[in-house]
């Protein structure tokens, strides 16, 4: 199967049997396996200038023309040699400082020496990848923010978690990784079915899916008011769910959905792989449909069976929720968090953590206020993390030039037993508000 990554195309066949972390070099079409450690390009010209006072940008320092370089490439010459050629034909190279020479070589290597490292999927890899490649699909949830959510939510083996996300299944996958197949997860989904494109990239064993439940968000209110019944299920989503299940099965077979990362930046090709995988799925599904048309009766029976199974699962999930003893709640969606939280917290046991992610701060301000009014929560905290990457090289250490502008906000807290008496709760609020209100006065004073 052909895969395209960073303007290169290749087949993965040769990569099978190697351990994760192996670096490959791309040749015309297939994969070649070079040594782990490529010998340093021997730049014996250890001559170097001290500063750039005599370096003039006349655009003529590189003696090779575009056509020359293209010719070299077409001849299939190793990238390493092209870089060497470029260095030899650069008139200013020897005048550059040692550090500038380093930088020049690095830049050219990046362009001409195509190396690919295949690594094992993990939350670390997938969340950095999604943030770099498809931030829109995960509501701009930066990976350090996701890390905070997993910790603040005390995610661990044995928990019974409720997850409501519209982050392509990335948050779900992260929770599943931390729970290691122990305990249970109830995924609340909007629309016709849960999206788990990113979840399937993790390559979880089938066992992990045994205790993964899903429940439609649109049935929440009826479940809370006790009027829930499976008869009122919309029948249209069944088809979608079918497709979902089939595609999940498919990726299970593949198990190791390989992730490519390019040597330097930990970005990768999994996106492209996903796309090609997706296409394949589509084809297969289309074939399935054809087959099904031929065997109409079987199809109907199959459909009924699936429908019945789905209904059974839904009843199970509803029962799990009704126990109202979940060990935590994780929300990261494109929806307004306040109504989600006010309803979903009903299903969480007391003294359990909850975390809400939002790309914007303002909805969380409102959510904070509403939760205070509702009561039953303590230790509310609105926070944001900043992430700064560093370049660490001898005599050249500094923060990286660019950093992410924002990775979203979190509102977290701990549930407590909700007061029944009204007078009590107002009392509680008065006490909890004590300190903030005094501070508020100060702020007002300042502004006056």
């Amino acid at each position, binding site marked *: 199967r052909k895969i395209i990554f960073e303007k290169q195309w290749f087949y993965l066949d040769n990569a099978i049997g190697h*351990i*994760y*972390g192996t670096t490959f070099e791309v040749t015309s079409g297939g994969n070649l396996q070079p040594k782990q*450690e490529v010998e340093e390009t021997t730049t014996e010209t250890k001559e170097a200038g001290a500063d750039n006072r005599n370096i003039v940008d006349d655009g003529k320092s590189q003696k090779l023309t575009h056509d020359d370089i293209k010719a070299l490439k077409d001849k299939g010459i190793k990238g390493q040699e092209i870089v060497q050629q470029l260095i030899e034909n650069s008139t200013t190279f020897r005048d550059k400082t040692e550090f500038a020479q380093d930088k020049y070589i690095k830049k050219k290597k990046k362009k001409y020496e195509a190396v690919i490292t295949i690594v094992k999927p*993990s939350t*670390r890899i997938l*969340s950095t990848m999604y943030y770099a490649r498809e931030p829109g699909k995960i509501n701009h949830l930066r*990976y*350090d923010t996701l*890390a*905070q959510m997993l*910790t603040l939510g*005390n995610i*661990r*083996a*044995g*928990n019974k978690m409720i997850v409501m996300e519209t982050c392509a299944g990335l948050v779900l996958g992260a929770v599943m990784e931390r729970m*290691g*197949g122990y305990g249970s997860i109830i995924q609340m989904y909007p629309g016709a079915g849960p999206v788990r494109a990113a979840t399937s990239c993790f390559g979880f064993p089938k066992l992990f899916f045994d205790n993964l439940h899903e429940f439609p968000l649109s049935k929440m209110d009826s479940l809370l008011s006790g009027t829930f019944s499976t008869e009122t299920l919309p029948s249209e989503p069944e088809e979608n769910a079918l497709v979902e299940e089939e595609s999940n099965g498919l990726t299970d077979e593949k198990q190791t959905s390989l992730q490519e990362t390019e040597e330097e930046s930990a970005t990768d090709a999994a996106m492209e792989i996903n796309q090609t995988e997706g296409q394949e799925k589509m084809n297969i599904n289309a074939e399935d449909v054809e087959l099904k048309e031929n065997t109409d009766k079987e199809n109907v029976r199959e459909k009924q069976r699936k429908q019945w199974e789905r209904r059974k699962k839904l009843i199970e999930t509803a029962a799990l929720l009704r126990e109202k003893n979940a*060990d935590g709640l994780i929300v990261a969606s494109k929806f307004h968090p306040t109504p989600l939280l006010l309803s979903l917290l009903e299903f969480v*046991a*007391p*003294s*359990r*953590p909850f975390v809400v992610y939002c790309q914007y*701060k303002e*909805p*969380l*301000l409102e959510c904070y*206020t509403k939760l205070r009014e509702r009561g039953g929560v*303590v*230790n509310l*905290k*609105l*926070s*944001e*993390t*900043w*992430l*700064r*990457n*560093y*370049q*660490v090289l001898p005599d050249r*250490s500094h923060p990286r030039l660019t950093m992410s502008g924002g990775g979203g*906000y979190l509102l977290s807290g*701990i549930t*407590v*037993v909700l*007061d029944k008496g009204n007078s009590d709760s107002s009392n*509680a609020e008065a*006490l*909890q508000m*004590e300190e*903030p209100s005094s*501070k508020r006065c100060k*702020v*007002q004073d300042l*502004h*006056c």
Partner: protein
Amino acid sequence: MSFVEYGDTIKDGDTAIVFLGHESMFPIKVQHGNVTQTKYGVIRHSTDLIGKKYGSKVTCSKGGWVFILHPTPELWTMNLPHRTQILYSTDISMITMMLELKPGSIVCESGTGSGSLSHALIRTVAPTGHLYTVEFHQQRAEKAREEFREHGVEHLVTVTNQDVCKNGFGVSNIADAVFLDIPSPWEAIGHAKSALKAEGGRICSFSPCIEQVQRTCLAMEEYGFTEINTLEILLRVYNVRTISLQIPDLGRATEDNSSAGFDSSNPSNPGSPSTNLQQGTVQFKSGVPLREMVGHTGYLTFATKS
């Protein structure tokens, strides 16, 4: 209770967190016959705590009340007795994710210090993983052992009292991840490499100073670690406030303003500004940064052995 499993009710011998309100809390050890003093009065363990649900409101003798919370590594981090400088949850969460920890992971750590990170690591690798932690200070090692026993996690952790720079972690070829929080991590990189599994693993070193990072990075490179990456994570906390800003008097006739449809301040609609003409102010909700925040804890350097 246990630090690795939720329990519903408070039992004799449990560690519980007493929550007094607004960031004020402390841990207690629940024991029959014991009492705990708070600013709201006395809590009697036998009658007020044992058998009650975690998350309950407990009324103290003076009529005040507190909440009793189930312990978690994060609450413990905020309340533990300091024996050393500790790592806080913001760094811990990044360490846990970037080291790719999950149930079943084998982790090596040094030094144990006050056990703030240790509890979080144990939580994540339970029930099938294990933590090997090395602390060269004998008293601290002893104290950590005692705490792990009290917290019901001793089966998941081995505390060794030796110098990691000289003697290593006491294990080899079994770890998925290594974490170093010591003054001279570069001296322990070799030991870290041999502690990691032959098929590879992840390493993290925490250092407050850039010079330490520099030397660590060089050592990592020397020992063949790849994907070396240094980062820093900062936490900003916001207070949610309702702010009123006064409208300046520009000498305009009041009739003009009242026709603009501004109504008196409307607390049910937070976030959006609303004006109160009588007072001449605009009210809005804001997330106000704290006056002071933690500006630096340490640099986190990650790398891969493959």
